[in-house]
């Protein structure tokens, strides 16, 4: 008897009789005997809960938590109010399936409708879907969507777009005959849109640009949108740290057609890279090309407002190979967490938090600028990330600080060989002034 399985031996016998077979063995008769596994699996014995916890705690302790961490780069630690997790883990949310049966799923449906609205508000666009797997795959899906919209196959990707997002675009594009062109950055740290303009042509499907970009610099989506428009192409905004949208111009205000990104920042634990929360928003005119689920408002038999999954003819379970995407299970619960988080922070709190992040980054910039050996690599306006340049190679410096319990951001040489002396640093609301001082002091002292 296993604690997760209610059937008792007596019941099993009774049920086998009802089914008309004489043994468990016979129940599996439709599997040809020749194929059957004739030995037990190699997995160990079942464990009781205490033993499971012991094992998991052992594994947890094989991790080492640094004392200070300045690492963002697409996965952003933010403080999460206690109730976000408590509410999202209510059985009714946690253990419900996709809301295919709206009459018994209004909780999930309304929450997603609210999520869609918040994403629209943040991105300044008309319509948002119920979530995508993550920011990277959402970016790839935006690429496919642009291709559906204008039939073209050339994409301009800012090189300052998260390197893993670019990799995912390449993977998705592998068999589709697309051309992915990367555009470098100016010394200021933003995309060289003049260079981009030079390569753009009539086969341009879309420009894909992230802001704040991977270096933490704000990009000029308006200029990118103008360039895209000139060529009849779409402008796709990518946002990996959407807290920035509380104080930075939205994709919608900048003339973008589509905004995609990662909303893990909004109340989703950093959890070694997943589950996260891809999002996608677009102008109304693109809605039928959008991938993913959409919740819409309607009324019931009595005229009362209610919510349902809608425009399903875009989706795989109706359209099969002609669907806008293969996505089915998405990141619903993470979307709920973000909705709770955003409802809590609200119009004022979100802004206050963004300003705090900005203030800390600004202090970090100043402190770096005032140091002996360090310099800011890029001077474009930014949000809560920045790139610091050391006199020597960054990777060994990073390792030295690790010995002191400090994760000094991300050494950039792996993704950008030309930035091998640079570290990408992230600060946020739990970063204290002293932490920044210590980091800069330690980095500054390495050279002496």
């Amino acid at each position: 008897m296993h604690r997760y399985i209610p059937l008792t031996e007596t019941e099993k016998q009774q049920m086998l009789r009802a089914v008309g077979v004489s043994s468990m063995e016979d129940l599996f008769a439709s599997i040809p005997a020749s194929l059957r596994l004739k030995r037990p699996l190699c997995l160990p014995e079942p464990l009781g809960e205490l033993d499971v916890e012991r094992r998991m705690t052992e594994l947890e302790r094989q991790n080492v938590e640094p004392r200070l961490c300045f690492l963002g780069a697409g996965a952003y630690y933010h403080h999460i109010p206690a109730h976000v997790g408590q509410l999202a883990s209510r059985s009714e949310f946690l253990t419900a399936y996709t809301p295919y049966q709206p009459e018994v799923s209004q909780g999930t449906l309304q929450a997603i409708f609210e999520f869609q609205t918040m994403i629209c508000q943040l991105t300044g666009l008309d319509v948002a879907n119920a979530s995508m797997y993550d920011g990277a795959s959402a970016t790839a899906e935006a690429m496919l969507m642009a291709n559906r919209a204008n039939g073209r196959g050339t994409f301009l990707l800012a090189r300052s777009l998260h390197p893993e997002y670019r990799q995912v675009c390449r993977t998705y594009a592998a068999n589709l005959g697309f051309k992915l062109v990367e555009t470098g950055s100016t010394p200021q740290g933003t995309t060289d849109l003049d260079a981009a303009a030079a390569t753009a042509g009539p086969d341009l499907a879309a420009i894909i640009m992230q802001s704040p970009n991977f270096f933490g610099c704000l990009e000029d989506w308006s200029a990118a949108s103008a360039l895209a428009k000139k060529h009849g192409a779409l402008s796709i905004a990518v946002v990996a740290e959407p807290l920035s949208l509380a104080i930075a111009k939205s994709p919608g205000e900048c003339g973008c057609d589509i905004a995609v990104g990662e909303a893990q920042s909004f109340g989703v634990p950093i959890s070694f890279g997943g589950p996260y929360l891809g999002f996608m928003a677009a102008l109304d005119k693109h809605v039928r090309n959008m991938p993913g689920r959409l919740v819409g408002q309607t009324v019931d038999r009595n005229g009362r407002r209610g919510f349902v999954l809608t425009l399903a003819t875009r989706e795989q379970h109706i359209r099969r190979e002609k669907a806008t995407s293969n996505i089915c299970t998405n990141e619903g619960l993470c979307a709920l967490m973000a909705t709770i988080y955003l409802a809590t922070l609200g119009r004022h709190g979100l802004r206050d938090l963004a300003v705090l992040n900005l203030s800390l980054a600004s202090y970090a910039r100043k402190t770096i600028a005032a140091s002996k050996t360090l310099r800011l690599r890029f001077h474009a306006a930014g949000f809560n990330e920045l790139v610091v340049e050391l006199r020597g190679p960054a990777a060994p410096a990073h390792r030295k600080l690790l010995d002191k319990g400090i994760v000094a951001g991300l050494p950039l040489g792996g993704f950008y060989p030309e930035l091998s002396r640079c570290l990408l640093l992230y600060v946020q609301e739990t970063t204290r002034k002293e932490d920044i001082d210590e980091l800069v002091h330690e980095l500054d002292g390495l050279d002496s």
Partner: protein
Amino acid sequence: MRIEEKLIFEKSRAGRVGYAVPSTTVDPVDPSAALGPYYREDIPGFPELSEPEVIRHFVNLSKLNYSIDEGMYPLGSCTMKYNPKINEKMAAKEGFAGAHPYWPPELVQGCLRVMKEVEYGLCDISGLDAFSLQPAAGAHGELTGMLMIRAYHKSRDENRDIVLIPDSAHGTNPSSAHIGGLKVQQIASNARGRLDVESLRKHLSPKVAALMITNPNTLGLFEDEIGRIAELLHAAGAQLYMDGANMNALLGKVRPGDFGVDVLHINLHKTFSTPHGGGGPGSGPVGVKTHLEPFLPVPVIVDEAGRLRLDYSRPESIGRVRAFYGNFGMVVRAYTYILSLGSEGMSAISEAAVLNANYLRVKLMERYHLAYEGLCMHESVFTDKRQAASGVTTMNIAKRLMDYGFHPPTVYFPLIVSGALMIEPTESEPLEELDRFVAVMNTIADEAQTNPDIVKNAPHTTPILRLDETRAARTPVLRWRPENR
């Protein structure tokens, strides 16, 4: 009970706050000066509520949902089993939930170990040789598999771009193939509800990259000719992809790797008990035989004498299908589950799941038309044929179940069964709950004869009644707008 809950935006009142910004000792910056032309003033219409109001809003919303933790949720193909609570606690452990994906490997040996052990466990269970945990859901795993198969053929200079898919397949199968840049050809099922081997043979050609088969299939039937099918495919130079969404029926009984499968995805959010969360997150690990290993997404976790590291330099890899390493939180839950069940437990699951499904099958057969006769695996598919005379449809039966406190089964899928009612109880249901379900289904069958209107107009007792889905699609309202207030 309050059954109406306003939208959060409608509850908002100017000036309310639900959050106090953390303290700091750095000087505040003027964002408009710092951001210059990029500065944004405000987000009009964004909610303003106090914390107690936020709590009530979401608690009250939750009450409008049905969930596994209340009762049976017999959605066929969805494996709505019990989601152990200990899984949640383990995934929330600070050491796991607080680990950054770019911390150097020496800081995250615990996380990597959890992932590696799940890979090992899935290999053992499936008979495949290597797994990637990167895909975020089943469909994502399918796409990954398709891309690997295509890359494999390319590496052998074969331009195979056709994928054969049975007509009973889940919609994600053809869609994933298509998104992966492959062409889909549909194969008919035979009268026994299995893939028609003759038809398969006819479709085989040097252009065929793979067959994508679900086993047990969406009719709940084991593809008993799978051995033959694998032979045919391999002989034709094609690969056998298996959609492992229904692995629950096979645990410890038979292994896809042993019946010729080359690539397989498994849904941790089905077979391995991670909660479905009202639509996700899931996790769709994809497993391969050795010849396909070079094509797995990067990074791959390498176990070197007990130390784990991430290997990115894999020239034949298809690349990444998402950022970082997959839905790690779900992997922690799955590992917890594997530890809790062990070898014995895995067989106990498949046995109870298949027994429960067959019990329902024989009991429901008395009043409902069973689409395909004979022993089923994890689920069985009925239709509304015997209710048709009174005008009662599958949808009506589904909605009427709600009035009796049950979530409906999967309806109108698979597409090859007209008016399908696809019922998967899983191993988590006690016999009483099955009997109660049968009793309710019988009552509905009675009502269909004696009082069809009560069935046709169902549900009657849910928080909201039958919704107008046509209207939702015809004039889409996909967001709230400030002017709605």
